[in-house]
């Protein structure tokens, strides 16, 4: 208990120390505001209503969470389909490994051609970058399940759905979560890159807007907001993992 409390204290201290160092650096170094604003100036940018923070957060948040959920469902479903058919897996898996090598950012201009710009194509961007780690780790997790366990269910003429809900999904869960953690980080990057390439709202779009006028405090605030969105998503994944996966079964 004591050491847990100590770890929390240290974690908070580290964050506070960074902000203090940032403040001192700007203050003592007399760093111009357009190069690096002080923490105060950054916070001040958040209070300006003309940036429309909440609307932009909502847009970027929708892109991240929407793309991520899509990646989660598609990744698990595809991996499950592969667990049913060895031929299907042998056919698609090498292809997917190749597709995984595509820098998803390079797809950005194409996605704009195909889907115009806006929330949907940016969700697709987040999806395309987050789906692979989830798919690959889930497939791995499903492969690790002992075939005799599947035999046990089959000998009782259990349905595929029972096989999935009672054996495969809970068995692969530690692996799925390790993919979900990687995917969470990537989904945030995907959505922002999507906004950089083409959008008319969102935090990434806002950054491009204020960059023109060298409004660095707003850019700083936008980066902080994006980071916080990522932390919320990652935190939710960790919380779910804590709730669903027995401690001794977790995969780092």
């Amino acid at each position, binding site marked *: 208990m004591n050491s847990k409390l100590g770890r929390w204290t240290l974690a908070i201290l580290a964050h506070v120390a960074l902000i203090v160092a940032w403040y001192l650096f700007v203050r003592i170094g007399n760093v111009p505001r357009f190069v690096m604003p002080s923490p105060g100036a950054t916070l001040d940018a958040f209070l300006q209503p003309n940036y429309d923070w909440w609307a932009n957060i909502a847009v970027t948040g929708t892109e991240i969470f929407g793309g991520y959920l899509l990646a989660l469902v598609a990744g698990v479903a595809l991996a499950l389909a592969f667990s049913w058919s060895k031929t299907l897996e042998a056919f698609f898996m090498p292809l997917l490994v190749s597709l995984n090598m595509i820098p998803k950012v390079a797809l950005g201009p194409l996605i704009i051609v195909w889907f115009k710009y806006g929330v949907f194509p940016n969700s697709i961007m987040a999806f395309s970058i987050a789906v692979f780690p989830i798919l690959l780790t889930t497939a791995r997790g499903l492969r690790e399940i002992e075939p*005799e366990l599947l*035999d046990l269910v089959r*000998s*009782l003429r259990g349905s595929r759905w*029972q096989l999935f809900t*009672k054996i495969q999904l*809970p068995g692969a869960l530690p692996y799925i979560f390790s993919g979900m953690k990687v995917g969470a980080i990537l989904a945030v990057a995907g959505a922002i890159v999507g906004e950089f390439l083409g959008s008319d709202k969102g935090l990434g779009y806002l950054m491009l807007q204020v960059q023109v006028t060298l409004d660095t405090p707003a850019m700083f605030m936008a980066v902080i907001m994006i980071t916080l969105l990522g932390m919320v998503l990652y935190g939710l994944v960790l919380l779910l993992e804590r709730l669903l996966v027995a401690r001794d079964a977790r995969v780092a």
Partner: protein
Amino acid sequence: MSRPFIHLAGVRKTYGDHLAISDASFDVMPGELASLVGPSGCGKSTLLKILAGLHPADGGEVRIGSPSHPFDPSRDVGMVFQAPLLLKWRRILDNVLLPAEILGLPGAESRERARHLLQLVGLAGNEAKYPYELSGGMQQRAAIARALVHDPKLVLMDEPFGALDALTREKMNLELLRIWKEAGKTIVFVTHGISEAVFLGTRVVVLTAGPARMADNFVVDLPHPRTLDMKTHERFGDYARRVYRLLGM
């Protein structure tokens, strides 16, 4: 004279061009404990999978059940493997309940039965524990309870004590005989331990490898309940020598 519960005649199984079983023929009477013994690669596990209905035979006749002992292949098979294969995210009681859940059996009754079975296998008081809290032998006991929870007519065991240390194995042999007597099931027990096969079996079926074929099938005429000192009896030795000879040793 009642009719056999399991009747195999000329059963063949190939995987591609690999002959896993050629001509397996034997009968098992209701309530028998039949030991299937042989070296690795002799098709013992394949034979179990055929009995479990997981793989069809490529030839010959497989008949399970008789008018006096009807058999429903969708719910009358219990399986125990070399590894306990308990679900590590489920408590012991919930692990035992898995087959009942899959078959959609009534919950309260099944729980009652699962508790009773845990008592039978000597695991009373461990219902709420997780598998990692139990030793290998205790996990295997839970796996046996799981194989019995849906009250199957036939229990298939694939080297269930192969991963245990020698002393635990002896102990589990005695336990299995007791459970078998109390539960009144027909058991097919696969092993590569000759002494284990003779000690447990009311019948021993010997399979040889390369090519996989059935070499012998005899009734073990030793009294029940069996005790460890029977292993030093002359008749026990005769049976064991008979198997050793067939396996070319």
